[in-house]
């Protein structure tokens, strides 16, 4: 464990330049550059808003902004995007970097850390854009927003836990890489992001309650839209699940990393 931490510390320069380079390279030679990172999720929001706001707009209780639905959507997507990006990229990071892992000796734990770093950077930029949009829609920032810091870390922990477990398994069983995008789609719709929880029929509530992303997205809604603190009991459970998954992921990663290179 300490070896892993020391490896990360020794390679901090590499991790930082990797995150930076990834960012620069992704938008090299595009006119709008980093703006695309914000445009994509916002376009998603705009599409849902256009199609669904008339249906759902009136049903958001406890908020009297006429753009209520848009705010609700944006808050949920801010949380989901971070989760989906980390899971999706952890899933394939070992396969994509297989050649590098075979040829160079470096602490392999750096790879998921780079993924997390660049996802956090993207999320931070998206958050800045969200603040501006919220202000433009007449929804001023408030002190509750500081809850987003621990919430972000909870998402990261949960996503790294899921992503690391699946990413390691995906090296050996590639079907996981194929099935996960579908699972993520289903997961997205089973999380109250584009709809509100009170339109869900009772028999599905139980299913939703067992979704660890639900309390997090609900907390984002509380903090960003309703300006109230999150529900700590629910978040606490998620934190425990996330830590458990992360430990499982690290365990798998440590046990499998020698064989991983053989299989790549």
């Amino acid at each position, binding site marked *: 464990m300490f070896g892993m931490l020391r490896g990360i510390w020794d390679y901090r320069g590499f991790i930082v*330049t990797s995150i930076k380079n990834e960012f620069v*390279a992704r938008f090299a030679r595009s006119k709008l550059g980093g703006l695309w990172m914000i445009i994509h999720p916002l376009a998603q929001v705009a599409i849902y808003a256009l199609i669904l706001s008339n249906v759902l707009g009136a049903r958001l209780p406890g908020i009297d902004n006429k753009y209520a639905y848009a705010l609700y959507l944006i808050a949920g997507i801010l949380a989901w995007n971070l989760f989906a990006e980390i899971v999706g990229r952890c899933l394939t990071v070992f396969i994509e970097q297989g050649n*590098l892992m075979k040829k*160079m*000796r*470096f602490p392999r734990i750096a790879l998921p850390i780079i993924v997390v770093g660049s996802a956090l950077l993207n999320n931070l930029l998206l958050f800045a854009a969200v603040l501006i949009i919220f202000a433009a829609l007449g929804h001023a920032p408030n002190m509750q927003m500081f809850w987003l810091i621990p919430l972000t870390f909870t998402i990261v922990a949960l996503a790294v836990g899921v992503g690391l477990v699946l990413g390691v398994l995906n090296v*050996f069983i590639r079907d996981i890489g194929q099935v996960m995008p579908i699972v993520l789609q289903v997961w997205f719709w089973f999380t109250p992001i584009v709809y509100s929880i009170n339109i869900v029929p009772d028999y599905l509530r139980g299913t939703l309650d067992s979704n660890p992303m639900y309390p997090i997205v609900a907390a984002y809604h509380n903090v960003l839209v309703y300006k109230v603190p999150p529900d700590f009991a629910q978040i606490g459970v998620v934190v425990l699940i996330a830590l458990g998954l992360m430990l499982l992921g690290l*365990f798998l990663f440590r046990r499998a990393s020698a064989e991983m*290179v053989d299989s790549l």
Partner: protein
Amino acid sequence: MTLLAVTNVGKAYRSYRSEWQRMARWFYMPVKATEEHWVLKHISFSLGAGEAIGLVGQNGAGKSTLLKMITGTLQPSEGKVQVNGRIAAILELGMGFNPELTGRQNVYHAAGLMGFNVNEINGAIDDIEAFAEIGEYFDHAVRTYSSGMQMRVAFSVATAFRPEILIIDEALSVGDSYFQHKSFGRIKEYQKAGTTLLIVSHDRGSIQALCSRAILLDGGTIIKDGPPEEVMDYYNAIIAQKENSVVEVNTLADGGRQTKSGSGKASIESVTLYNAENAPVEYIAVGEDVCLTIKVKINVELPELVVGYVIKDRLGQDVFGTNTHHLKCVRTDLQQGEVLTYQFRFPAMLGVGSYSVAVALHATDSHIADNYEWRDLALLFNVVNMSKGSFVGLAWIPPTVECK
């Protein structure tokens, strides 16, 4: 001091009935692999400071696997690799370069990947830029580089910091010949400073020029470990080896090793060097007219026979070689029991030193196709300077001189 000790290392790729069984093993469940495929077994050797060792072997002999275990990207299944010091590998130059980034940014990235922090790289970046000599391109995106320029940058980073062990795979041919000389110079310089070189190459020349020792891998084990010349001879013999042919090594009177291989369909009876007076000689003078006589016995009916020879210097580097295919003296439809005598006459335009002759009997112009017999060190002779003025080098190329 031992920089690298490889002790009884082996590598097996295991397969399981299903991947779930493999995973069960991570949770300490006793699961047996259904199949073990050993690609390397019982590899042991050690390297001291400043040594240079060549690693040779056919494709699939296990060279790359061994290198990966030495660099640490692969874990050995048995045995131990002990490394004292930093290893740098020029395995795949330009690994991890991002084409959209500039040379400079890629240098930071690549050096970071080697484990250096930003301060250390800051200290070396000017040297790297100067060594690569690609001018203002250093700050342009790598996608605009020619492959040679990319190689230059990659080599400069890979060797920017002197490692204790430097692994060089194939790619000594970095960029143009100017840069090749330059990179070669740097490698030599590091070696003098105590870096151990581990060179993987098929090129006899570079192995013999750089290495003091060579290791031959075949079928996943070390089959020869010794002086490069001897190992390379054996390696060539293996390449030329056909089915049901033998490789035989004889120890000569002077302690050298003679390697013989081939199918034996024709055999070399004798190899002798005669001087102008038709007397067999061991010492010849620079520029003397000599005759290399090779007696060949045909053991089974042969459609075609080509006889070739190579004169090598004491380091085993080729000085001159030709064969009867190129000399337009190919014999066809030979009967069993026939004995042929080939006489190659030439002036010995050679520098002072000891030389050896390797002789090969084969079917076509290449000795790979059907090798009847191949014999290294078939003849040894010495060249002495008796009448010419003093000169250096392998060849006697007498000039005339004028000064205006």
